[in-house]
């Protein structure tokens, strides 16, 4: 048992107990009353020494009860708690995990882990703040909520009400768990709030007390960057585990939908289910379009069990695909795993299906092969213009290219790139990122980035380029195709232009006679076009930035979050950037274009991160080069004072009964 405020109780006892003794030893000043005879009166007190100030102490039951009562109250004022605990001195930083896994509902009383963490933190702070007037100074507390990015909810403070309010205001997110940024933030705050004079006066003390505050981590232990954490000298972090290590989870690890190329009105959907349990699980699956049930498994789907244990464990997976269904307009496809388990976030996935639409392509320049190929693409309408007219047109109207989804240029002498998506063949545009420095001849292919969307299902080993531009792109540009003398196809951004640059003309190579030419060109157009208004669904992870283009001159631009909040946005250079996204669901980007037509674009956000979906709380945290107290501790200590006060009240009742039963004295 620990006493929070021993001095308060001792001082109180030293005052009131002797006072009680004195009161019992002092003779009561009674009113003299002359009566005819005391014959019928029996003295209720035995000591009748009338002239003495004090009398001997009479140990009556009432005195003993009152003595015991005062001792109990004094003991209650000492703030006893049943726990091996001591009040930290200096500063304390609470790191409260608000990541997706903290929404798992496996804490006592059906609370989520985050609710439990907040309750524990508040209880701990209240415990430190307890003790009343004579209590030692409570530690300064800073609260940092962290998921993918940390935020200081309250800087160092001793104001209990504000701390409690700040902790209660921490909301759940669906982001990953990154602790390192939170610790960096805490260190920065600690260093910033220690005065230079203090640091100069006592560097060691300063480091111990200010730079290295006591850190309390309230988390389930599923921390993605735990391997990157390094504790500084003197830093100590205590971890309070929130959650059950035996909690298992099944969820949707992947979900998608695509319009078919041959018939864009048909949408095909697929999903992958995962199971972390060691036994197979059966779950029902439903697919809804804008809330209407469109597909459901006839019987529960069996998800195979996970294999392996610990770090080598591989979750069981079950892939599902649904028959294509007709969806001509946009819609929200929701996939649900029923019934919900403790971690409901990954039991649902949403997919925003955009309205079927045809890409508008501008072909600038004269290339029969490209012209024939682009016209053959079913999802595109092609407008052709000569390169000289194109140069003239964009010189007079720089925004003209924004009216097309993709601009394909063949051997155009571009001095700059306006906003838009560009597929450029031949002459390099005069932009600094490419660093064009001449020409190369006779190149074979060394390598290509086959995992890029534009290069998929293509074979470039037989390609020979007779003549190409020599370029040395900056490092932020991606080389998709490497020739023997330099990059031949690169991808990157220049201001508001997204560019795929092919450093040669198709007719200067044997490419038009190869299948990779068709595949690449089609996929490049689709890739660039999908960045603006997709023909397929688009999905983001929590923590990502929502970035989308808005037609110039649009008004009333806003984003409606899954919770229904509408946040006004101001486009910058025809683009809005929102985020990092905190929660899963469908985000609606709404605007009114210059023609007064309302535009809505939906972006789905789903949690598919395997680390975050593994909701079994960690048994141990290992932070390298640090002094981690990885034991699971409970922050709530049992306060004894209510019991003592209750016992004192009971004694008071007994004392009252005896007083009235036996007439106030022995």
């Amino acid at each position, binding site marked *: 048992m620990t006493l929070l405020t021993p001095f308060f109780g001792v001082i109180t006892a030293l005052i009131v107990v002797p006072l009680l003794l004195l009161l019992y030893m002092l003779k009561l000043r009674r009113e003299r009353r*002359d*009566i*005819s*005879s005391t014959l019928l009166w029996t*003295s*209720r007190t035995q000591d009748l020494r009338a002239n003495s100030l004090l009398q001997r102490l009479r140990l009556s039951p009432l005195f003993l009860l009152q003595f015991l009562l005062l001792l109990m109250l004094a003991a209650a004022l000492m703030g006893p708690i049943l726990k091996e605990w001591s009040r930290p001195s200096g500063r304390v930083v609470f790191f409260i995990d608000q990541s997706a896994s903290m929404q798992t509902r496996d804490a006592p009383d059906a609370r989520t882990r985050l609710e439990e963490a907040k309750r524990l933190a508040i209880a701990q702070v209240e415990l430190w703040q307890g003790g009343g007037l004579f209590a030692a100074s409570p530690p300064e507390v800073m609260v940092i909520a962290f998921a993918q990015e940390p935020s200081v909810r309250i800087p160092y403070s001793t104001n209990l009400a504000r701390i409690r309010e700040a902790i209660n205001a921490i909301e759940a997110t669906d982001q990953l768990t990154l602790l390192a940024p939170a610790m960096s933030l805490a260190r920065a705050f600690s260093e910033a709030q220690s005065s230079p004079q203090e640091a100069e006066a006592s560097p060691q003390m300063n480091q111990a007390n200010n730079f290295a505050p006591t850190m309390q981590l309230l988390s389930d232990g599923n921390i993605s960057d735990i391997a990157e954490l390094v504790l500084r000298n003197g830093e100590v972090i205590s971890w309070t585990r929130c959650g059950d290590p035996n909690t298992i989870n099944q969820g949707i690890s992947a979900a998608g939908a695509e319009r078919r190329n041959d018939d864009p009105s048909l949408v095909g959907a697929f999903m992958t289910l995962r199971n972390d349990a060691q036994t197979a699980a059966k779950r029902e699956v439903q697919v809804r379009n804008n809330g209407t049930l469109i597909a459901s498994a006839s019987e529960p789907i069996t998800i195979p069990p996970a294999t392996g244990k610990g770090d080598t464990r591989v979750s069981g997976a079950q892939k599902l695909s649904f028959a294509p269904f007709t969806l001509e307009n946009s819609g929200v496809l929701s996939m649900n795993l029923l019934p919900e388990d403790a971690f409901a976030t990954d039991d649902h996935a949403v997919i925003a299906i955009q309205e079927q639409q045809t890409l508008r392509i501008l072909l600038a320049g004269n290339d029969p092969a490209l012209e024939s190929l682009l016209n053959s693409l079913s999802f595109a309408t092609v407008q052709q213009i000569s390169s000289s007219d194109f140069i003239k047109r964009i010189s007079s109207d720089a925004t003209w290219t924004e009216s097309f989804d993709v601009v394909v240029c063949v051997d155009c002498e571009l001095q700059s790139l306006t906003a838009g998506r560009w597929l450029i063949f031949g002459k390099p545009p005069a932009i600094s990122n490419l660093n064009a420095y001449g020409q190369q001849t006779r190149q074979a292919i060394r390598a290509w980035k086959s995992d890029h969307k534009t290069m998929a299902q293509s074979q470039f080993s037989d390609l020979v380029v007779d003549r190409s531009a020599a370029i040395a792109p900056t490092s932020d540009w991606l080389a998709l195709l490497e020739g023997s003398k330099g990059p031949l196809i690169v991808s990157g951004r220049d201001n508001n232009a997204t560019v795929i640059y092919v450093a040669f003309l198709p007719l200067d190579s044997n490419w038009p006679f190869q299948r990779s030419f068709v595949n690449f060109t089609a996929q490049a157009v689709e890739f660039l076009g999908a960045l603006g208004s997709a023909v397929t669904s688009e999905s983001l992870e929590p923590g990502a930035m929502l970035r989308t283009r808005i037609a110039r001159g649009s008004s009333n631009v806003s984003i409606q979050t899954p919770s229904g909040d509408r946040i006004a946005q101001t486009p910058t250079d025809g683009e809005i950037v929102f985020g990092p996204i905190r929660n899963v669901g469908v985000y609606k980007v709404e605007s009114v274009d210059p023609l007064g037509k309302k535009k809505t674009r939906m972006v789905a956000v789903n949690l598919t991160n395997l680390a975050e979906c593994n909701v079994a709380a960690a048994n141990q945290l290992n932070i390298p080069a640090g002094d981690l107290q990885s034991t699971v501790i409970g922050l709530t200590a049992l306060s004894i004072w209510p019991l003592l006060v209750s016992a004192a009240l009971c004694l008071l009742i007994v004392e009252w009964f005896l007083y009235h039963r036996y007439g106030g004295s022995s």
Partner: protein
Amino acid sequence: MSSHTKLTKLEDLLQPSLVAALDRLDLMSQKMLQGRMQGERRSRRRGQGMDFADFRPYAAGDDLRFVDWNIYGRLDRLFLKMFLEEEDLGLVVAIDASASMDTGDPNKFDVARRIAMALGYVGLVNQHRVTLAVLQEGRADRLSSLRGRRRAADAASWLISQKAFGTSGFDSACRALASARLGRGMVIVIGDYLLREGYESGLRCLASRGWDVFALQILSPEEMDPRKNNQNLDVRLVDLENKSEVEITLNSTVVREHQRRLETFNTTLRETCLRLGVRQMTIDSAVDYQKFLVETLRKQGLLK
């Protein structure tokens, strides 16, 4: 607590409105008592009264005025008519004048003196031999042998001059009263009877002398209910006679216990008086003593 009223004149003791009522009353003894002088009360002594009692043969020396000449005419023998002689009644009104009587509101000693004056007045107007006495410090100071209405002022002056102090010495005072040559008669002893030494011996001494003893106990309202007129619950009770002290807290338990003791004490007093052939009565000093004299005492048979 004493609330001694200043009694300075006869009217303080005996209000004129009460005098008329008392004029119609007379004392009534339960015993036929022998007086010293002819009075207005029937006695056992045969003599010159108005009520015929018996005949007896004439003996030499008898007063010829009492010879029944009618019988002599019929029987030719001399018989003497015997009459119940009307004698005076000896009335002794004794007051406990100890300090304990000088308490209460109304003051017990004042009430006792008023009752004594009233009873004495009844005795005086009925030509009885009235003796007033105060029992104090083992003595019985007396104002003896008063007779006739004219002596009422003397009786009042004497009563007014009496002070309550010290102890009564009840036993000794009763013996002293009994040993006084007061003849036989009625003795009314007025007091609170809260006597540590007891009262039985004194009452027995008076009753054994053939007196018709009436014990009148006066208790103050505070003695009946200790919480009356008392705001402070923590009190130090001081005995006025022996100065002993008792510290108490007047809670309900203590008061209840006191009332139980008082009830027991009064029951004992009644039983003792019954055993001694002494009439007894307990009154509150706050009683309407005029009504008490005119109605209650008549119902009790002390007055008629």
